[in-house]
């Protein structure tokens, strides 16, 4: 069984061979988890909801997810993006089922009460956490039963809180938790580069402990994928792969370790 995370920026730019490639491996059970941050920003702004971004003390820029934003986030992620992927898979003979993390409580998360940001004076400040969360539990039995019936689940990164709020959760870590909790053999993060690059050189192999040690030195964006990869391995996944989704047959190529980053225990 394999969990594939499709990065938001590549949903529109997947290599034309990707879907046929997913079909090749779908017999062994594929779960897709997607992102789509850029599309959420575009549609929010088209709806007149200017997106506010905040900066963490370590310099990570993130969306501030207020009540209106989380509603738009849910609409775009679980509507337009999720259904576009499902349609794309259906069109190519893969019987996909689109789900959000809300459905069947697939993704249960704890809402962040506070966030630490850097304010306009350059000082650290605690602000209301808005509607973001950290995943606590995954309804693995529901995902497995969908797989058992021959469907390919496509999951959007919208989680449900204990108070039944919609929560914006990170897609990479959502994929990691899904992979870990369903006991997937592998997790594959498809992105727009060949894998983890250090000093412009592709890192081909890493152990779990090497990956954890390297985390503070990795640039933002890729850092979250490596972190998610380490989390999935700690939850029992055998192998985490970070690979380019814009090249020919990206799935089978990554599974054969061709020009990508492979992280194992």
């Amino acid at each position, binding site marked *: 069984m394999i969990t594939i995370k499709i990065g938001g920026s590549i949903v529109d730019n997947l290599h034309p061979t990707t879907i046929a490639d997913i079909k090749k491996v779908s017999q062994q059970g594929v779960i897709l988890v997607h992102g789509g941050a850029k599309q959420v920003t575009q549609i929010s702004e088209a709806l007149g909801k200017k997106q506010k971004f905040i900066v963490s003390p370590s310099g990570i820029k*993130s969306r501030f997810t207020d009540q209106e934003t989380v509603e738009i986030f849910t609409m775009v992620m679980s509507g337009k993006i999720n259904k576009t992927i499902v349609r794309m898979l259906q069109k190519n003979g893969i019987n996909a089922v689109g789900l959000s993390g809300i459905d069947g409580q697939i993704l249960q998360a704890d809402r962040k009460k*506070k966030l630490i940001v850097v304010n306009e004076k350059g*000082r650290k400040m*605690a602000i209301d956490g808005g509607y*973001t969360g950290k995943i606590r539990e995954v309804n693995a039995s529901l995902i497995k039963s969908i797989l058992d019936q021959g469907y390919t689940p496509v999951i959007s990164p919208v989680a449900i809180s204990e108070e039944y709020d919609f*929560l914006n959760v990170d897609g990479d870590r959502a994929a990691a938790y899904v992979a870990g909790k369903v006991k997937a053999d592998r997790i594959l993060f498809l992105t727009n580069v060949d894998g983890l690059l250090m000093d412009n050189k592709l890192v081909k192999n890493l152990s779990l402990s090497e990956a954890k040690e390297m985390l503070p030195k990795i640039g933002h964006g890729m850092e979250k994928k490596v972190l998610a990869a380490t989390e999935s391995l700690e939850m029992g996944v055998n192998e985490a792969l970070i690979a380019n989704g814009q090249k020919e047959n990206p799935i089978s190529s990554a599974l054969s370790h061709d020009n990508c980053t492979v992280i194992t225990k």
Partner: protein
Amino acid sequence: MNCPECDGKLNIPDDAAVGEIISCPDCGSDYEISKKDGSNIELKLAEKVGEDWGE
């Protein structure tokens, strides 16, 4: 004002606002300004929050 943890001196800027985080230069403890009324400032231990802020 001194650090409730180690008694080190906390440097709180005059224009600090409620919500700002003050770190103790000696022990590194982080405090959030919970109330400010003129020069009277109340602190509470800042919550530790990770950086998983969603998409």
